[in-house]
């Protein structure tokens, strides 16, 4: 693993530069959060977060100067996270919602307390008599 042979030492200016950039981006992200960009709200916030994260990973964590294996681990773990997010969400975005007519069937949980379902019917107690 010769790519790890020499230890990389960054100059202090790099660290302070990154720190300064992180501070600025934090202020920016907090400030823009109060403005409405329509469908891009999440993208802006996450874009800034990704930029900040990349700065930390590349410079504070020295990935920019690390060997291929470390870079591979970083990329692979992000890909795996992507698999977990991506394949879970495809279920949720494509589920057909079943919402029966509340006049026909008592709705569970949401607007009725759960026990009311069992309470009213089976004995024809309050409803029928």
């Amino acid at each position: 693993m010769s790519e790890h042979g020499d230890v990389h030492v960054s100059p202090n200016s790099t660290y302070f530069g990154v720190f300064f950039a992180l501070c600025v981006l934090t202020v920016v992200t907090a400030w823009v959060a109060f403005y409405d960009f329509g469908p891009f709200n999440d993208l802006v916030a996450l874009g800034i977060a990704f930029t900040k994260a990349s700065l930390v990973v590349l410079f504070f964590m020295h990935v920019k100067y690390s060997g291929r294996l470390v870079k591979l681990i970083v990329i692979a773990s992000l890909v795996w996270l992507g698999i977990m997010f991506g394949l879970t969400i495809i279920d949720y975005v494509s589920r057909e919602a079943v919402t029966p007519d509340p006049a026909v069937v008592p709705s569970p949980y949401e607007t009725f307390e759960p026990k009311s379902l069992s309470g009213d019917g089976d004995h024809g107690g309050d409803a029928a008599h």
Partner: protein
Amino acid sequence: MSAHTDTYDPKVNYLNTDWSIKSWLLTLDHKRIAWLYLVSISGFFVLGGIFALLIRLELLTPQGDLLSPDGYNRVFTQHGVLMIFLFLIPSIPAVLGNFLVPLMCGAIDVAFPRLNLASWYIYTIGGILIVIALITGGVDTGWTFYTPLSSTYANSQVMFVALGVFIAGFSSILTGLNFLVTIHTMRAPGLTWGRLPLFLWGTYATSLINVLGTPVVAITIGLVGAERTLGLGIFDPALGGDPVLFQHLFWFYSHPAVYIMILPAFGVISELISAFSRKRVFGYSFIAASSVGIAVLGFIVWAHHLFTTGMSVYAATVFSALTMLIAVPTAVKMINWTTTMYQGAVKWDTPMLYAVGFLGLFLIGGLTGVMLATLGIDIHVHDTYFVVAHFHYVMVGGAIMGFLGGLHFWWPKMTGRLYPESFSKVSAVLIFVGFNATFFPQFILGYMGMPRRYHAYPEEFQVLNIFSTAGASILGVGYLLPLVYFTWSIVAGKKAPENPWGAMGLEWRIPSPPPTENFVKEPVITDAYDYEHEILKEQIEEIARDEAAAVPSTA
């Protein structure tokens, strides 16, 4: 390593170098840690086996008269938890893996020996917590901990077991991490990736799953615990939480976990078939690549456990197709193992019996797996005994056959003793027959519609259940035998030579049992399966002489 040559005493090996209890409990030697694991998982296997026995006895009659419903629920849950989290997942990686990974790498030890010992302690703490749960009332959620049953409704020791599983999970994460680093950085000079024994490829793929998958189940089970104790409501349907999300997260790990159990077994089988055919394994690079391929594919198929939950039809279709892709690398392995025997010099010793038995059983397990991935069939057989039979074929017929095969193969190396070949052959046949008698009827039961986790069942299912229970008793005897003759062999077995099988591989070129430092002289790195190599010639001839001496010629 050469530095140790001058102090080497051939009578001292890793087992007899120090007899004190402390030297075992505080050992950093990967070979001794393998023993710590072997003893602990055997204990949990026996315990899990007793629960299995109770399940089969209960199901002998349709009425559910041996155990109360709650008692039965506890028994099958505990069977599952013990067998999966405390036996199967650590079995091959932690026992054979710990013993063999450094040996096969030509290294003195794993990369992080202290972490390795810590992993065993973490595993033990997890195990103790689960045992405490068993003693103080048991757990009845099923090993899958589905919410909201586990988070809100269950009335048993869910917290202890959840905590135990959570903690034991970190043991397998750390073991996986250790092996990955070891295989990457500790290989002897000249041991290139293309020369790696296939057992290491299997272990490598397994470790990938351990590191990337296990944390997800840990946090998921952690959330269930938080829901029970702290009142967090992440999966609570009363708040609009989705219990199916729990299942997604749970199976994100627990499906790959099946490959944690089976991939190392694949590695073992590759070694066994090659060694007993004395032939380079067929299509080496395809078997190696398919291990990693299965590990990766294993992560994108989890939702096939959710087809009946009311998940999206489109997502179900995607997952069904992805699942079927796993048939391809698996078939590659099957075919290559078979063709390895072509023009080989096949000897039917006990480990080979296990290997061929594995081939047959895993074939059934794998093919029914693809049937289950077929949407139209899965809807009917999901959560029935068909599924139970399928995963037992994979986990018992696959993983345990692989584990036992490997244990028989490397036992002379681990202990320096030979086990009685006749007994071991009998037990291998008993296990094969008993296993099929136990689980094949369950395929039919499942298709007939008998749901799993049933404590009482309609009468028409009884005949097949009787077959199954009868088979289980044969299987039980089959599993008891190795326990007896292995223990006996440690005390009174014949001394094992360096290489009793005439196998290739670095571990067969050091004394049995190995010295603490593994390699007394710099290991000569060769191709792992070059059976015509000079190095092997002398050893094979020695075996031939021994055999000729043992069997008086009748010709």
